[in-house]
């Protein structure tokens, strides 16, 4: 690696809207809410921003940088739109961080936002890409991730019943955390029985194995590390920012095993190298990972080397990833409780790490966290783009 982003930029202000079915708000309202919370948190004025990045996935009203400069009335400054599927928000932070680290700007704004609930249907608005022959099989995001579960169960000799039980620990844990988060879409606890008896969305994944869809936005103010303390006593420093875009091998190569995600493994390893982390399980204090589906969170724990291949079950049963466990995962409730407004999710994850590192996570506060990791996964297990970000004090 030629150079690292480690400790070169800092986050000095963040904002996050309440996520949910925001029938009362359009995407532009959500952007304004998130951005102004971030301005206030950083103690800056809108005019202090020198450039901005906006992350949206399918938000037609936010096409181009003007999707942000318009609603915020940003005055004739460089604004860039980023789209990288579910890694969109984190990639917006990455691009903004690089511009600041390069010394081009001192203070920049990042907003990730998405309005999913104006579609009129459940699930992500995924269709075969326009102007292609339209021959993709009839499956949805839950179906594509379910194929990870069927294969995982089969490879490790786990019966469907055992497998579903293993996965059920994941949403139960996340809902416990989300119940304590006023910004979460779903704020109630659920039981193992509810998870196991829920209707099947895509076998073997049931309703509670799948995250919801929601509207939301989150924002960050990023500055040069050496000026961060001028803004606040507790800035959060970027330790690693990695994106791994897969070559689309899994759907084509028969040696892809459908029990791990290569892009996730590689993004994690690159982030550990960038942050100088040798023992992830010991050094990482907490994580927000892409639990769009329970099986995905399970596999990510193995991809990120928190547990050996095929053994995540042991840690799920032991409560390793609960708020009071050895390595809390999804302390804010995760995609499971926040839903997944695509462009916003990555920034929302960093918002939780930021608040936790500053000791401002209220009843969800983790004791003395040092390093927080976020991970986003866009696409599906066989072909995806994965972002991995590590932040710390």
């Amino acid at each position, binding site marked *: 690696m030629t150079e690292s982003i480690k400790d070169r930029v800092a986050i000095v202000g963040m904002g996050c809207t309440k996520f949910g079915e925001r029938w009362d708000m359009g995407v532009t309202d959500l952007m304004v809410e998130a951005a102004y919370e971030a301005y206030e948190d950083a103690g800056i004025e809108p005019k202090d921003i020198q450039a901005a990045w906006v992350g949206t996935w399918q938000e037609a009203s936010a096409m181009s940088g003007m999707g942000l400069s318009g609603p915020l009335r940003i005055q004739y400054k460089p604004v860039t739109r980023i789209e990288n599927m579910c890694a969109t928000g984190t990639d917006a932070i990455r691009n903004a961080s690089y511009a600041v680290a390069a010394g081009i700007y001192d203070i920049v704004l990042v907003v990730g936002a998405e309005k999913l609930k104006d*579609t*009129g*249907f*459940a*699930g992500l*608005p*995924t*269709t*075969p*890409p*326009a*102007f*292609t*022959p*339209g*021959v*993709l*099989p*009839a*499956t*949805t995001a*839950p*179906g*594509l991730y*379910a*194929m*990870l579960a*069927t*294969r995982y169960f*089969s490879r490790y000799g786990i019966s469907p019943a055992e497998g579903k039980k293993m996965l059920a620990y994941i949403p139960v844990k996340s809902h416990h955390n989300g119940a304590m988060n006023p910004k979460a879409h779903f704020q109630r606890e659920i039981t193992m029985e509810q998870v196991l008896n829920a*209707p*099947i*969305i*895509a*076998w073997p*994944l049931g309703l509670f194995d799948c995250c919801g869809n929601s509207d939301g936005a989150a924002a960050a103010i990023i500055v040069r590390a050496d000026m961060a303390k001028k803004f606040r006593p507790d800035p959060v420093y970027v330790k690693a920012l990695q994106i791994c875009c897969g*070559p*689309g*091998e899994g*759907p*084509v*190569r*028969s040696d*892809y095993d*459908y029990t791990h995600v290569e892009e996730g493994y590689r993004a994690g390893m690159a982030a550990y190298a960038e942050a100088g982390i040798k023992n992830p399980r010991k050094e990482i204090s907490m994580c927000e990972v892409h639990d769009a589906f329970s099986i995905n969170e399970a596999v990510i724990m193995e991809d990120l080397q928190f547990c050996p291949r095929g053994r995540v079950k042991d840690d799920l049963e032991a409560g390793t990833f609960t708020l009071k466990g050895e390595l809390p995962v999804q302390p804010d409730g995760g995609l499971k409780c926040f839903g997944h407004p695509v462009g916003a999710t990555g920034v929302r994850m960093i918002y939780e790490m930021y608040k936790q590192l500053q000791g401002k996570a209220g009843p969800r506060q983790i004791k003395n966290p040092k390093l927080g990791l976020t991970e986003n996964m866009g*696409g599906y297990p*066989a*072909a995806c783009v994965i972002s991995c970000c590590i932040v710390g004090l």
Partner: protein
Amino acid sequence: MVGIKSYGAYIPWYRMDRQAFFNAWGGFPIPGERAIASFDEDSVTMAWEAGKDCLHKFDAKAVDGLYFATTTAPYKEKQGSAILATALDLSREIRIADFAGSLRAGAIALGCGFDAVKAGTSKNVLVVSADTRLGAPAGDLEQTFGDGAAALLLGKDGVIASIEDSYSIADDFSGVWRADGDAFVRSWEDRMVVEECYANILPEAISGLMKKCNLAAKDFSKVVFDAPPTDIRWRDRLAAKMGFNSGQVQDSFVMTVGNTGTALAMMILVSALEEAKPGDKIMFVSLGNGATAFLLEVTPAIEKIGVRRGIKGHLETKKVLTNYQTYLRWRGLVPITSAQRPEQPPTSISALSRNRKQVLGLYGVKCKNCGTPQYVVPVGAYGGSPARICVICQTKDKFEDYSFADKRGTVFSYTHDNLSPSPNPPATVVVVDFDGGGRGTFDLTDREADKVAGGMSVEMTFRKLYVDRGIHNYYWKAREIRF
């Protein structure tokens, strides 16, 4: 010697218990079952199945003529035979034609194919016929119709049954008809159709041929003929009237499959060929706005043709449905609530055309550097199509064509997706690892959801994904191997 070199047939896996029609509407129940095309099948896909069966162990590239007969073509203006020629991976230098307008269209196509081979303008003509006709709900025809397809390969060498002669008559009488814009077949009073049309015109063609060839009824080992276009039960009752004893009449399967329209006579002929012995004389007669009778003589080569799925195989492989609503839904006969999912983006003719070899032919590539077969769907994130860079060794533009259409495979992973809209929910999707290398993700069709498992052996079948603004989007699905 000009004649039939090979045969094939197709009957959809799904059969509807006729009791289901009676349960829905009352009226007069007809015993037995009828074949119904799945929601993703039509006359083109069924013709592909029969054609594929017929070309088993034959060189598809040697076929230089393809005639497709149907009264239920998906297009008024676009040839089904052109789609079939690509999907069956036939040569580009080929004569194609669609035959339509009559239940005799299959036999007429056979006659034209025979003439072309005899004249020397074509060497190997594949004649395929298929139909998916609709009887109006609550009527008898809904019960008596069935869906199916047959195929015959004609040529001069390796003939298993020579076509010795034929005799045709024209008659404008039509007991059944469909005008432009009619969705359902109309019919005149059944007794008149059977007694005046069927029971007169058919024997006229039979006696005409016998006279022309100087043969008597007793000279035939088997006689193959259509069922009446209305009440199929009359077929066997009328056989005796035509001077044939019951041993000579080739059994039809109309009571368990239904009247398969244009395809019926050819399907019965296939069933006769499955049992035929060298030296057999077969009379083959088809009715529709007149009639055509052929004299066929079975040769010793029939003993070497080998097993095909044919009629026998398909009759043994079935899934009986008892739910009339399924039939209504699959045939699009009732408005169905729209799925709470995004609409398909507009289908692009230019994108389909550019990728027709991948889409209609299920062609992938094999890297000339590392030798890896690869099937790539035409979507950028999965590699894009045509493949330019090898997924294994990243060599650029060093590929040879590689067909996946005839490769079998094994299910590596699967799901049953309840969120995805499907006329037969849940949508079952499988990751297939092909024998010999390569992988693809496909819909699994004709499946019993609770029997799907990793390791299941599958083959590829040509189906229709959807219709968008008049564009029938054909593609491939995986199917459990049942033969």
